[in-house]
């Protein structure tokens, strides 16, 4: 409570917390390794696939929380950013493997190996893995760039504009990708085509197929925990307080010296980055990505997670992502009524707890964990 808020606009001070404490990074790495080497063999392929989907949905839900939860804007563009990031990363790894290795199968280390190791001792990391990581980051950056372009004009305005603009953006992305040229598969042809031209060959209506397999539990959980760390630290930083102030009262925030447009755009760009990374990760697991599947329906899936978890609650989004990924699979025994029951569960949930599972608080700020919250001065902690 007595902490003096640092100046809101000093970049270096805001970024100083990155190297300050490596513990979260260690935790991310530890959990990712644990999921890969212990959980996967123990729980089996199906549970592992669900765990993988959960992690991807956590990244998506938390990234959307940064916009819809922290700054109180309403974005419906998650699927669009996923598509942008996924296609960008897929183009890099697919055409990149042809360029670098002359084949569509880049070398992968044990961290990118699927399921039970097939006996061959693999090195930890191979150059293909580095290409994959670079591709994911590239996908994220492209999505962030798209987020900047979309966000800058629409976030100057107040109200529902962002929802409409992002909805339109998602549709534009979908149509553009679906009408792209067919994927090239001839090594010589690929070698002779310049990169900008290659990026127009994204598979068209069939989707981008034959993407190399890289995404394992290790990579998704690493990305998921890093997303959580970034989101949590952002919420607790001076940046975060600026975001939250916009949500609570935009006029008051402006009066306090917060440049609302700038901060809304920042939140939106960071959110787009993580959505793009999630798209890249899922593309390298399914080994194909289809813009047709990434329509606004997919954005709604993520919005539901955020709303159900509580707008602004990171842990709520995490929990909702987990529950909403597992629930449809649990309900499979109901066959045709599965989606009806699923929808009913959501409706009941919203009637019982309209503010979401945790409202704007985190899981440790409610119930038995409450005692810790007393002195923390969690911003917005009391406003439900």
């Amino acid at each position, binding site marked *: 409570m007595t902490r003096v808020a640092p100046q809101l606009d000093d970049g270096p001070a805001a970024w100083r917390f990155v190297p300050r404490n490596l513990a979260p990074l260690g935790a991310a790495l530890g959990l990712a390794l644990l999921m890969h080497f212990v959980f996967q063999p123990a729980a089996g*392929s199906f549970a592992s696939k669900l765990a993988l989907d959960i992690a991807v949905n956590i990244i998506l839900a938390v990234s959307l929380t940064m916009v819809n939860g922290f700054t109180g804007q309403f974005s419906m563009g998650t699927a669009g950013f996923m598509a942008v990031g996924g296609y960008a990363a897929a183009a890099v790894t697919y055409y990149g493997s042809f360029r670098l290795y002359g084949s569509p199968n880049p070398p992968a280390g044990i961290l990118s190996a699927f399921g039970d190791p097939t006996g061959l001792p693999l090195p930890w990391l191979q150059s293909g893995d580095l290409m994959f990581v670079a591709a994911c980051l590239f996908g994220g950056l492209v999505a962030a760039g798209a987020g900047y372009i979309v966000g800058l004009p629409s976030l100057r305005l107040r109200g529902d504009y962002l929802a409409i603009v992002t909805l339109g953006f998602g549709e534009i992305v979908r149509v553009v990708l679906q009408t792209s040229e067919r994927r090239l598969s001839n090594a010589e042809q690929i070698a002779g085509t310049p990169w900008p031209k290659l990026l127009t060959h994204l598979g*068209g209506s069939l989707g981008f197929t034959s993407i190399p397999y890289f995404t394992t539990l290790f990579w998704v959980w690493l990305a998921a925990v890093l997303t959580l760390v970034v989101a949590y630290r952002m919420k607790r930083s001076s940046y975060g307080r600026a975001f939250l102030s916009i949500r609570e009262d935009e006029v008051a925030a402006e009066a306090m010296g917060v440049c609302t447009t700038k901060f809304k755009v920042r939140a939106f760009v960071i959110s787009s980055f993580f959505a793009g990374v999630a798209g890249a990760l899922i593309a390298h697991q399914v080994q194909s990505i289809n813009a047709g599947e990434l329509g606004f329906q997919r954005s709604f899936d993520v919005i539901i997670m955020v709303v159900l978890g509580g707008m602004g609650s990171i842990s709520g989004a995490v929990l909702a992502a987990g529950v909403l990924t597992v629930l449809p699979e649990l309900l499979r025994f109901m066959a*045709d009524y599965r989606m009806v029951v699923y929808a009913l569960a959501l409706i009941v949930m919203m009637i019982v707890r309209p503010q979401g599972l945790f409202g704007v608080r985190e899981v440790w700020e409610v119930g038995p964990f409450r005692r810790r919250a007393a002195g923390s001065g969690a911003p917005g902690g009391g406003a439900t």
Partner: protein
Amino acid sequence: MRMTNTRIFSALALLSLAACVGLGGCGPTDSNSGNASGGGGGGARSAAAGGSSAQAPESAGKGSEKSPAAAPAAAPAAAPAAAPAAADEILIGHYASMTGSEATFGQVTDKGIRLAVEKVNAAGGIKGKKVRVVTLDTEGKESVTTTVVTRLITSDKVVALLGEVASSRSIAGANVAQRFGIPMITPSSTNPEVTTKGDKIFRVCFLDPFQGYVMAKFARENLKLSKVATLYDQKQPYSTGLNDNFKEAFTKLGGTVVAEQAFSGGDADFSAQLATIRDRGAEAIFVPGYYTEVGNIAIQARKLGVTVPLLGGDGWESPKLAEIGGKAIDGSYYSNHYSPSDTREEVVKFVSEFQSKHGGEVPDSLAAMGYDAAMVLFDAMKRSPSLGGADLAKAIAATKDFKGVSGMISIDAERNARKSAVVLQMRKGKAEYVTTIAPQQ
């Protein structure tokens, strides 16, 4: 900072707890646990799922130092009890879009497959065992497809897979099936890429371009035409593929393609192209497009005084064709996988059995292809020395002259089907069976 870390860790602990409880719960509520007799043995291929539960405590210990409560919860996750096939059962998996915008595709295919299962069981099953099909819904999404295919293979332990209709989802499913070494047959995905995914992936439908050959042969040998024009959609690989194949085959058979005109999907005015075709004196126009454009092209052609028949591929297949084209489309021909008005014995039997089971519903191509895919699989199972993936795939690959509803099916070296196609004619708004064209030798 210390407090922050504590929170992060406790959050992780809670998360892992939730995940464990959630995942552990999957087993008992599995959709196919209905006949959990015994629950032991199951498939020979229990590679991952049976799993070493000894490792579970370690997992819980590391993951959540601050919360001992997570430790016991990890145990159920280690045993995602699959519903194993009963000893006298063979399980096959079908993944299909049972809901979503393409729900009809999956539902109809599933009906065809289930009819095939009923028939094979009524005839005594395979190797003395009954066949049971497990259908899981892909919701028309690729990401869900990989999840359900993984589930079918590792939890339900199916010996073979059938699916999907959409090529994009068949490709996604094929990647998983190939990784696990489980044979898969797609009933009606015509994209060439599907079967390139590996040596366990097959199809029982013909590839799109084959229809170009079919219509060329039909035009040259049945209709005895020598001058034909083509009008195709230059943006659609489906259309260009058929066009190229038609041109090649028709020329080889001694005919001449007098005009080759192109349009782009979404065009509404085709009069320029049709005028050219009229002036060159074509005796028929090959239009390998989809039904909406074909309907419009037919109307505009008749307005321009072009009365020759149109020829086309299975993109024409839709009740909308007659709605849009009306009288203008009457007398035109198109090729398809199958026709319910075919007079072959297999077809007549299939149609009557399907109708008696589904209240008079006439089975469409998708139902017939689903039926054939299942029947080809059962035929291979009977011939295969075991139901292991490698043996079964070899047996499917050896399929030769199998009498299916959609024609004689042989599997070639690329794991695609070499088979016949039917030619239909539009008469008074209805597609009637004309003839069957055999594949080139």
